[in-house]
């Protein structure tokens, strides 16, 4: 399957996870990894499945590298019907009130443009004991089984 992996990051943690996901999938699938900062919303139509890794920053805001993508989504209102995406969040439960807001808000925006979510969005907690890839890889394997 053609799988495009995108990341929205502030400190690089989401980029690292995106690369881990690509490494995991590259034997069985045709994968690519790109920063959301350098991605046009229309580009999501190219792959059969888009996997997005997105953190939150500051007061539940989008991370820096997701912001240009979000601005384009809002300004260009592209029609993303037919686009399928799975989204994985990075969050920090120390900031409970806005935990995982970056990935939540991005998912909402994509759905509002007609895209379809595959699987349930889950959020890795930076304040917890799990490693992000230990949550993300089984999560994605489950999604790929049904995709």
């Amino acid at each position, binding site marked *: 399957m053609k799988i495009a992996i995108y990341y929205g990051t502030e400190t*690089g943690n989401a980029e690292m996870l995106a690369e881990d996901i690509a490494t995991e999938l590259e034997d069985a699938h045709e994968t690519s990894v790109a920063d959301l900062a350098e991605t046009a919303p229309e580009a999501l139509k190219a792959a059969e499945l888009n996997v997005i890794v997105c953190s939150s920053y500051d007061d539940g805001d989008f991370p820096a590298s997701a912001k240009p993508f979000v601005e384009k989504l809002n300004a260009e209102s592209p029609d993303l019907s037919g686009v399928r995406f799975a989204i994985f969040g990075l969050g920090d439960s120390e900031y409970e009130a806005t935990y995982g807001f970056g990935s939540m808000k991005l998912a909402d925006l994509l759905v509002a443009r007609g895209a379809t979510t595959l699987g349930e969005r889950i959020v890795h907690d930076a304040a917890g004991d799990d490693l992000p890839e230990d949550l993300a890889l089984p999560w994605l394997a489950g999604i790929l089984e049904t995709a």
Partner: protein
Amino acid sequence: MSAKIAIVGGGPSGCYTAQALLKRAPDLEVDVIDALPVPYGLVRYGVAADHQGTKGVARQFARLFTRQKAQFFGNLRVGEDISLDELRAAYDAVVLATGLSADRPLGIPGEDLPGVIGAGALTRALYEHPDATDLPHLGATPLVIGTGNVAIDVLRLLAKTPAELHGSDLGAGPSDWLAAQGIERITVIGRSPAAAARFSPVMVKELGELSRADIQVRHPAPEAEDALNLAAAASSGPLPIEFRFETRPLALEAIERGLRLTVETPEGEERIDASSVISAIGFTCDGRLDRAGLLAEAEDGTASRLYAAGWFRGGPTGAIPQCREEGQALAARILEEITPDPARPGRTLFAGREGIVDFDHWQQIDAQELAAAPDDRCRRKFARREDLLRPALPQDA
């Protein structure tokens, strides 16, 4: 032909620069040199013990050494164990990312009185930096000068209950010290108006959510939605934390039970009595390196093969995301400007030198610290340099 680059300082700026260099040019020989036996600088010793999520970037930095083939040379202080000139002769480029470790002086009479402590010195002691001084006695009514994020970190730790420190890596000694302070009231002063204070709104919000905090604001920002106004409205604990803005410190004097600070306010001069004074007004160079001279040289990297990064370059502002952004820009610039010379020895300069520790050493220390963590902590740091240097126990062999 791969260039050889030495990065002096294994904190976030040095590590992000190394990461960006190796991402662009995986064949580079990148060596990260640190005066401490352990890597990551302020990620380990400056990011607050209860902000473990922020410390998560250390996993990226570990990959520098485990996958991107950077090498770590720890316990090697440039300027003492090796001269900067030797290093510059041995590498195609040298990046200075040593940070700014000294507390900026208050610059007022009485600044050196007993009971006046810099926030950098205090947090080094709290976070068990091997070169830290002993934790001071703060008394019942400490006063904090400064309204940046370091000041807020100090306030938050002083205000937290033991239960609110669960999951942190605050050591047993500092935890006992905190519990024993018996603080009854904290005053915070800043020169700017409330609306211009440097702290991040999220940090203030977090402070207002603590069970003991009762935030009060002497000269509130005019906007009701200001983070500090909201935190003041939301907090009603037993520990008053009073912020006073537009308040400039003029002089400190010793009084019978502590210190008296004279301040200038819009209403005229006032005196504030405190049991101790914590200055959190920024950081400056500790003087070991000639910062001004080196920065001047670093402006022309093509000629000097010298570069500067992070706080050492730009001063003590900017957090982890800025380090990443700047590291990427600096890496691109270095790769454009340098000309590798195969005659330069690079890391072979260190062959046979005693006392240097490598990344394997850190991984063993790290594993031991994690394994030794008590139930309510995520790590138990080795606090003493000799423990950080002690050859790793053979248990993992």
